[in-house]
């Protein structure tokens, strides 16, 4: 980790227009939580209707994607990444510093709002909100690592990341139950279940150890891959 890279990364994410989008998404979630609570009253059921589909499957991956692609992609796009890479800082340090920024944004703009929305919707059972937030934290870390690697890999990281999130995690993951073994959002659901055992999100069961180990492997693997990618980085132009 390098404090200067982190500081510059935070400014890159929040400094420009993309910062607005990161603010808008959690505001929508929390406003919607208030609306739904006013409509349907508080309870674990209403939280179950809103938090998994909107929070875990839409807000979290989108925020992680926007944050991760704004820490690395603009520098690669305009070529200024070479000045960073020319510094005597290991590529692993650069990658992990970038990841820390992406993860921090994901926590602030997705995990905490999910916790708040959960507390609004199910005030009586705060453990439920905590369970969703823990799941979101694990999934957010995995998404941030994955998308950081993706934006080091290709200039079309946002589009590819969106297709992955929408089609694999969203559409196919919802239809084909075997996908739960290789889907970040299902691992997050399994971890949330383990925190609050009243939750029934994954069926058939996935098992906490598998979910934890898989998440750790994904995070570590993609950080190393991203660092590896930056080690042999050459600037190429397409389109």
């Amino acid at each position, binding site marked *: 980790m390098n404090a200067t890279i982190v500081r510059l990364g935070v400014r890159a994410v929040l400094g420009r227009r*993309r910062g607005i*989008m990161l603010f*808008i998404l959690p505001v929508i979630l929390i406003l919607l939580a208030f609306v739904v609570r006013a409509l349907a009253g508080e309870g674990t059921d209403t939280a179950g209707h809103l938090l998994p589909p909107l929070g875990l499957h839409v807000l979290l991956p989108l925020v992680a994607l926007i944050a991760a692609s704004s820490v690395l992609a603009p520098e690669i796009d305009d070529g200024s990444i070479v000045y960073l890479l020319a510094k005597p800082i290991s590529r692993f340090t650069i990658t992990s510093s970038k990841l820390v920024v992406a993860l921090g944004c994901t926590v602030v703009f997705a995990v905490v709002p999910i916790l708040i929305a959960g507390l609004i919707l199910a005030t009586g059972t705060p453990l439920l909100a905590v369970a969703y937030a823990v799941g979101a934290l694990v999934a957010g870390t995995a998404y941030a690592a994955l998308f950081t690697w993706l934006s080091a890999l290709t200039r079309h990281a946002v*589009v590819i990341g969106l297709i992955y999130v929408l089609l694999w995690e969203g559409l196919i993951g919802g239809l084909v139950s075997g996908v739960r073994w290789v889907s970040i959002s299902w691992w997050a659901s399994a971890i949330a279940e383990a925190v609050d055992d009243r939750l029934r999100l994954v069926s058939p069961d996935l098992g906490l150890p598998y979910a934890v180990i898989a998440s750790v492997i994904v995070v570590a693997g993609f950080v190393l891959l991203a660092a590896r990618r930056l080690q042999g980085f050459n600037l190429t132009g397409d389109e």
Partner: protein
Amino acid sequence: MSSPSDPRVAPPRGVIHDIGYRPYAGPRLGEGQVAFSLFLTGLRNCFGLGRSGKSKVLPLLLLVLMVLPALILVAVMVQLKMDQQLLPYARYAMVTQLLVSVFVAAQAPALISRDLRFRTITLYLARPLRRSTYVLVRLASLTAAVFILLVAPLLVLLLGGLLADLSVWGQVRGFLEATAAVLVLAAVLACLSALVSAVTTKRGIAVAAVIVVLLVSYTVVSAIQGISVDQGNDTLGQAVGLFCPFTLIDGLQHWVFNAPPSTPAPPEGTGIGVVFLIVTVLVLAGSVTAMLLRYRKAVSV
């Protein structure tokens, strides 16, 4: 030999040689032809034609993925010898909305953002092409591309239905109604996404912004609709459908054609139906106006 400084020799004078270059003297096409060729290029670019090989992959893959379910549905329908379509024409766009959203999100910024970001728009406007024409042509290209994406599977369903000896008039009518609705949907999606990508000129971030607009609005709308139907609050459930392009057009076609709805709370009755129509018109007119205003600023800066 005399040196150049020799005062007796006149200094060399420049001569213009005619070496045969000729100016273009043929007919010059007017704004109409420029606009048409810009429309055609834009439409081709939406599907990656005339762009790099990498750019062809995504749109053509999405087109295939759009048509594939229609082929499967037709095959199943023929195999089971059913007397109606498995999926009504009117619901196809809603069922495949993820693919449509990705297509719009990927292609609108490609068409809109780059001209603004790299300032190539000044080159277009150096031709006999007015700013407003450029904006409208870009919107038309995008609308046409989305329309092709949406109507291709409907054509497959229609052909399948006709070959399976379903009632001709019923099939053609369902197809035509759905085609009209899909045209409006394509226009709404194109105008909204073009506006978003004209405001956020960075390509990557414009893609994400369009997806946020389309996906988050749909998720929010369906969450509120589900809950309000549970609570028996029909008015709210119907009204909230106005806030997402897909549910808006779904409600509109349900009201106009009495098409089978894809949401739990479609608009029932003339009052709310008229509201759906007015909102559709306002969204279209509003985003086109906003686009025109945006480009007035973009070009003068």
